[in-house]
């Protein structure tokens, strides 16, 4: 048996899970529905409203279909990449209609106050068992925004063995993105004041591979281990972000558009363990390590604890997540006039800076009688608080010391859910 296991990898549990949808055929009411409405708010920044609906059905022959529709409406203020200054700073906004200017007060982080975007995404997956122990899933996703369009196709295969205690899975996905920045795509590294823009859209493509093993460890313990690899090529810049150029006295003399490499390769390892400690209490602990060829390394640990109450007809679920990342090689919060960066590549995007973040969450769910022929339904509400603290150590000119140059992110998420 051990020899046969040598081929392994991820997913055992998925095949032995109870089906998420009633096993029947024919009637539309046999579809299971999972829906949520999320509200996300960043302090002083953007807010988003995100409704999601997912419908799924498992057929009598084991085939399964799943469709998802997600909508996002974002608005608010988005950092433009420039550094706070002792003096007012004026910028042109690519957002809003018509094009206009905005001014950032001294000491404040420059943000485009009129950021606005809507996104709609639809996806579907079809799972087909082709032997008692093997199944194939194929799917796709389309996502559209005002300035962005994405199409993704994916396929995976899973094999059960060891009395269905072990599942080996392998998946591949391919993403094709088209970017049409409002006002045109800036010349990477170009002078912001000259507003040099390239014509036409930009593209980027990505390929992802995922290899995984799911293993039933004991009657109360399930483990999943995934290795993933992805490679994106093409236009990887944020077209709306630029970098302050600072003189030795701390004065801002200009700005230049960011310039990232046109390829990024990421590798990650993910390990999740689910343990039932009692009929009422279970935990899910996940750990992830990621590295990429931009120099970013990250560690993530997340713990969910589910505590079922009243004969399992309701539960609460506290969550905590810890995350940290190192800086990308070409991240720089500003460019000194006398000292251009060692590399031609440069970005002041805080998502590529060194930082750590904590998330604290709580969920409450209540089971209700089912609708129609469905056995039960569930309503839930959850809230999360996310705080990101930047760990940028770059020395700054004396005149800028004392300013809050890297304010980080504080965000709240509130979500209601209904599934039946």
């Amino acid at each position, binding site marked *: 048996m*051990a020899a046969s296991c040598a081929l392994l990898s991820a997913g055992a549990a*998925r095949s032995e899970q109870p089906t998420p949808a009633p096993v029947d055929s024919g009637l539309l009411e046999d579809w299971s529905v999972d829906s949520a409405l999320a509200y996300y708010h960043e302090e002083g920044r953007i807010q988003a409203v995100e409704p999601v609906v997912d419908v799924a059905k498992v057929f009598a022959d084991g085939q399964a279909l799943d469709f998802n529709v997600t909508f996002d409406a974002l608005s608010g203020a988005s950092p433009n990449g420039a550094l706070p200054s002792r003096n007012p700073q004026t910028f042109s906004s690519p957002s809003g209609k018509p094009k206009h200017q905005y001014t950032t007060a001294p000491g404040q982080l420059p943000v485009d106050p009129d950021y606005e975007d809507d996104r709609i995404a639809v996806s579907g997956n079809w799972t087909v068992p082709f032997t008692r122990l093997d199944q194939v899933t194929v799917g796709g996703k389309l996502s559209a925004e005002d300035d962005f369009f994405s199409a993704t196709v994916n396929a995976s295969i899973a094999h059960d063995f060891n009395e269905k*205690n072990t599942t080996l899975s392998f998946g591949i996905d391919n993403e094709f993105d088209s970017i049409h920045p409002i006002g045109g795509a800036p010349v990477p590294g170009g002078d912001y004041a000259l507003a040099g823009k390239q014509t036409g859209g930009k593209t980027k493509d990505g390929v992802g591979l995922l290899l995984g093993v799911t293993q039933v460890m004991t009657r109360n313990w399930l483990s999943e281990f995934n290795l993933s690899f992805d490679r994106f090529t093409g236009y990887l810049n944020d077209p709306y972000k630029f970098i302050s150029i600072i003189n030795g006295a701390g004065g801002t003399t200009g700005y230049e558009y960011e310039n990232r490499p046109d390829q990024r390769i990421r590798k990650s390892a993910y390990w999740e363990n689910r343990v039932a400690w009692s009929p009422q209490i279970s935990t899910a602990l996940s750990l992830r*390590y990621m590295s990429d060829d931009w120099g970013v390394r990250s560690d993530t640990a997340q713990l969910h604890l589910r505590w079922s109450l009243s004969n399992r007809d309701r539960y609460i679920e506290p969550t905590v997540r810890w995350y940290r990342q190192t800086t990308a090689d070409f991240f720089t919060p500003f460019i000194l006039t006398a000292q251009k960066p060692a590399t031609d590549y440069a970005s002041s995007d805080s998502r590529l800076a060194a930082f750590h973040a904590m998330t604290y969450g709580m969920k409450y769910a209540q089971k209700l009688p089912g609708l129609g022929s469905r056995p039960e339904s569930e309503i839930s509400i959850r809230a999360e608080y996310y705080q990101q603290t930047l760990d940028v150590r770059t020395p700054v000119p004396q005149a800028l010391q004392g300013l809050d140059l890297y304010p980080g992110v504080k965000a709240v998420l509130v979500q209601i859910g209904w599934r039946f």
Partner: protein
Amino acid sequence: MRRLSLALAMLAVLAVTGCSTLGVKPWQRDVLAREDMQLDSDPLDAAIDDHMYFSKEASSGGRSFAGGGCGCN
């Protein structure tokens, strides 16, 4: 890279040594069948969280593919 190598080694150890002694018989799956013991017990919660982290952090994926189909990063 060293940590990825370690992860690969863990995978190999699990594969070679684990399977024959780990696991349960079909009639011992009562606890594993519980909703809270499913790896994708809350797929919408996970998707909404992943979208938030995708737009704020340099990392994504792990549990599934890393691509986001989103212009937010």
